[in-house]
């Protein structure tokens, strides 16, 4: 079977996977979802001093369909939860989530009736950035962590397993 190559460690497929991973790694278009204080620091990270664009995260895509990395910067309140969930659902695969700041990670100082105690209750999170708010370097570090995660991915094999061919 020709498709069995997907399961093996074929040189060509490995290289192809590497190429795909390289492309995804170098072009993580962010969906900057800054709701609170962290949003300002995220802006600082996008601005000249830190310049997230160096990593290819140049084009902030406000349409969730076009984004790869959801940067949740700031508190998600309970009123916002359905909307936030919907944005995540609207993003096309493959997608990653950075939870930036204490509020997004765990609710932070706001242990109150209206605050969601961490966005991981609603969506899967890839990288947490602690801090209230984290420095822009923190966000850049998180983005690099996402890149490392992408590098270890096996997009073709996953796809093959999904549609039930190969091993």
């Amino acid at each position, binding site marked *: 079977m020709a498709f069995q190559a997907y399961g093996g460690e074929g040189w060509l497929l490995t290289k192809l996977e590497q190429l795909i991973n390289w492309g995804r790694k170098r072009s993580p278009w962010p969906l900057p*979802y*800054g*709701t*609170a*204080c962290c*949003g*300002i*620091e995220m*802006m*600082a990270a996008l*601005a*000249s*001093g830190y310049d997230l664009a160096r990593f290819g995260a140049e084009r*902030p895509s*406000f349409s*969730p369909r076009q984004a790869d990395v959801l940067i949740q910067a*700031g*508190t998600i*309140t309970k*009123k*916002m939860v359905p*909307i*936030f969930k919907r*944005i995540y659902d609207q993003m096309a695969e493959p997608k990653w989530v950075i939870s930036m700041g204490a*509020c997004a990670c765990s609710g932070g*100082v*706001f*242990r*109150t*009736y*209206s*605050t969601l105690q961490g966005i991981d209750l609603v969506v899967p999170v890839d990288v947490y950035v602690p801090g*209230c*708010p984290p*420095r822009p370097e923190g966000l850049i570090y998180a983005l690099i962590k996402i890149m490392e995660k992408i590098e270890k991915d096996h997009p073709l094999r996953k796809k093959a397993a999904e549609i039930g061919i190969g091993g």
Partner: protein
Amino acid sequence: MEVRRPTIEDWDNPGDLVTINIGPSHPAMHGTLRVIAQTDGETIVSAEPEIGYLHRGVEKLGEHLTYHQFIPITDRLNYCSAIANNVSYEMAVEKLMGIKVPEKAQVIRMIMMELARIADHIVCIGILGVDLGAFTPFFYLFIQREEIYEIFEWYNGARLTNTFGRIGGVEADLPEDFEERWRKLLPNLKKAIDETDKLLTHNRIWMDRTIGVTAFSPEDALSWGFTGPCLRACGVKRDLRKDEPYCFYDQVDFEIPVGKHGDVFDRYIVRMIEMEESIKIIDQAIKIYKEFPPDAPLMAKVPKIIKPPVGEVYSAIEAPNGELGFWIKSDGSDKPYRIKIRPPCYMVYQAFPELVQGEMIADLIACLSSLNIIAGELDR
């Protein structure tokens, strides 16, 4: 300027209107604002803002924290200029307890607040530019904002949420080379403001997009409870720094810029001039600061556990966005009984339907950015 705004009756067939839901996940809505607009093509027939997407229960939280513990929470109100919030809250508690803050601490507060004002206006103008399609000024201004952050960071260790000051004074003196740093920052800051001015103010497209857009009369503005730059843009000369002076604002010389029509352009210009005035204030405040001996006291005598007497006070300062007030009711215990925050942009934003009615979708965005709505203090 006479503005007649069309109302919903002016449309022959309201059934043809399209409802557009703008936000909360919308690039110009800062993540948390939402406007439900009825539009006829591009023209807005009616707009209804919905808020509360960043309601974090700050006031309720305040009732469960001690007076000191609440200072960091105030950082997260208007996160663009946390220091102004801190000082406003501290001043309210000091008023409640009848504490007189040492004069040197007041000068330090003043210097820091004006720096915060510049930082806040930079965010507002930068984002107004971005929302109108002019990206570059945002970057020019943000470089200088980083420099201001450097000063904050090196004074008290935090960039954005500074938790500046203590109840009864400030925690530390200004570092020795503060003035040196300020002198180093100043020409660059002026240059950035100047470049923004060159890029935008006399740009024909910018003028077309902002002049006359969402103009507002002073009577309306006062009735809606406008304060700060938005009110001054309407032509009302009101600034708490002059009208109810606190710190050393009555001893420094500065102008209050006033607009004419209350449109987006006036709000922008008022903010631009205010940045320059703030620079003037800081220069003078540094002069006052240097008159104090290095060992002058920075803290008033304040008990370790703060237990104000039973009572209620309201204290307000001129935050970058306008009158930021704290109403505190004490029941004599170490926790405030009730804290009410009077955020400036809350009052401004409620006039939004009236502001944008009859304008176009693009104007709605321009108006929103020029009002400088900060969700943190809007929803609390």
